[in-house]
């Protein structure tokens, strides 16, 4: 054996062996650590949480029955006879209707996004991992959906299937599947090219095992971040559908629908008529800011 490189140093003689000074922290632990130190995100997360809680607890905290009408008490301003936020065009209490409306709006904001993440995520991982023709087939189909503006697509689907809350949610789900699919596909394609996938194959792991243990963990982050940003879009689109009469049907309270019916009275009680819009605005901006905070916290260089 040539002695050109005879360096028989005992193992552990370099400081390469020194213990790292930092605490051991997993990915999710470090994400939570960063979130805890981000007061802006924490504040808006608390806002979102209280909006959700208020909607869930609507029957307990609402001062009136959301369907009780009153001929004499129509379109009253703030503070009229115990109606802190006034009344709508049928004399129903605005505060109560906003609380109940939040249930529908939030439901239509979250359910389509969750379902679309599952379906789009699975399709995206499949397309990204298998590649080749499967990828082409799935992604080009998604591109067809991409060709339409999302609002038009939602309106077209909801219009074709008829109105109603469930159909509205279905329409929104279909609208969100292509972007979710694309995010998952991009993340999967990036991961698939890395050597650790090849190393897993070399250990004899099959495709499903590799996806489960090595791909999903790396795709989950981007999909989750994107999904969280879609919640506010979904709330807005759902309100839009209801506004056009393609979503929730009256008398069920929904922010978009309330905005639609109250717009004719905008000169009578402008502040009351603007309330559903304010609710949509606050909710979606809170969701967006939380999503931004999450994105920053999850952007850990690994």
């Amino acid at each position, binding site marked *: *054996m*040539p002695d*050109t*490189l*005879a*360096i*028989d*140093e005992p*193992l*552990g*003689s*370099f400081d*390469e*062996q020194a*213990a*790292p000074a*930092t605490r*051991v922290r*997993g*990915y999710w632990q470090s994400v939570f650590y960063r979130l805890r130190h981000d007061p802006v995100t924490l504040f808006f997360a608390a806002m979102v949480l209280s909006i959700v809680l208020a909607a869930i607890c609507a029957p307990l905290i609402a001062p009136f029955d959301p369907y009780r009408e009153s001929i004499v008490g129509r379109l009253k301003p703030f503070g009229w006879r115990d109606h802190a936020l006034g009344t709508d065009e049928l004399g129903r209490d605005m505060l109560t209707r906003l609380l109940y409306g939040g249930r529908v709006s939030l439901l239509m904001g979250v359910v389509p996004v969750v379902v679309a993440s599952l379906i789009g995520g699975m399709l995206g991982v499949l397309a990204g991992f298998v590649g080749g023709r499967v990828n082409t087939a799935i992604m080009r189909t998604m591109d067809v959906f991409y060709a339409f503006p999302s609002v038009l697509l939602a309106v077209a689907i909801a219009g074709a299937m008829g109105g109603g809350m469930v159909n509205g949610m279905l329409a929104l789900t279909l609208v969100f599947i292509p972007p979710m699919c694309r995010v998952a596909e991009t993340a999967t394609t990036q991961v698939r090219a*890395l*050597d*650790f996938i*090849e*190393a*897993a*194959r*070399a*250990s*004899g*792991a099959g495709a499903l*095992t590799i996806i489960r*243990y*090595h791909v999903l*963990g*790396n795709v989950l982050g981007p999909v989750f971040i994107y999904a969280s940003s879609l919640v506010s879009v979904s709330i807005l689109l759902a309100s839009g559908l209801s506004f056009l009469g393609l979503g929730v049907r009256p008398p069920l309270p929904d922010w978009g629908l309330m905005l639609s019916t109250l717009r004719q009275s905008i000169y009578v009680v402008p502040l009351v008529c603007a309330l559903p819009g304010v609710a949509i605005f606050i909710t979606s901006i809170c969701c967006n800011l939380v999503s931004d905070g999450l994105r920053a916290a999850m952007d850990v*260089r*690994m």
Partner: protein
Amino acid sequence: MTSAQTALDLRFLDSRDRGGPTQPLLIARALRKHFPVKRSGGRAVQAVDGISFAVHKGETLGIVGESGCGKSTLARLLLHLIAPDAGELVFDGDAVAVPGGIAVGALRRQVQMVFQDSHASLNPRMPIRDSVAFGPFVQGKPREAARGIARDMLGKVGLDPELFGPRYPHELSGGQKQRVNIARALATDPRMVILDEPVSALDKSVEAQVLNLLRSLKRQFNLTYVFISHDLSVVRYISDRVLVMYLGRVVELGTVDAIFERPQHPYTRALLASRPSMDPTRRIDEPPIVGDPPNPIDPPAGCRFHTRCPFAEPVCASKDPPLGESGVADSHIAACHMLDPRSGHSRAGAAAA
């Protein structure tokens, strides 16, 4: 050949041995892999073009060559991570992935690989003990047993399993990550490890540590190595035999002493001459080899080296020089017309001496 003798003593200890001590552990026969280039009218990158060699039990076979000569493709072919277009693999007497032979899965239970990029070959979202335990787990060990193996292997590569096991790859240095990759490769108890440039991305001091670790693990686990590198000093340090590749072909194969002391092929000589000298009076200004390797999409006809060879003659451009058979363990063969007295090259026969 002391190392070959040590191997001879040890190889009877392996209960999985089928072919006996003289049966090479892995034989590659006429392996070929061409990557088609899109929109080129059916042309292909001839990454590996008819490579044959044998890896004997207990040895370290070094594979050297310039960037882009097909070293990494060859490594992946040996593990069947990519399927060859033609040719066959024989593992310990059994043909791989053909009817009557052993399956690819059986091959991968006995052959493992360490990659060059120590960071990319670890899952960033997985604690390293889980990365090491993944192999045994996939091959049917219960979760707890796999974790036990991982602890054991991390200790064997010099990382404290309690301290490093729960850590994530980004918390480790390059050398530590490569130790983890070695532990991961050894966790499934392979008989052969393919090391694809395992130290090329490491600092020199860490490189020496990892090389020594590899040598001691080889003794400890009775391993056979295929060591791919472009670093001639490293290959000389670790190998028993060396295979020199040029543009997807084998140009020379022999024991480490034969290759480094008596290189026969002009390309091997040029490679060896390109090493910087430690002696300031012997420093050279002229590069021993000029130009880049030709495009592997359109490799030159005949001897692929003739475009850069100082001794090239018309015969080199027309006839493919034969490599010869590597029957005996320490035979020294080279694919050059100058070594074949009947080739018609004017220097034929003279250069062999």
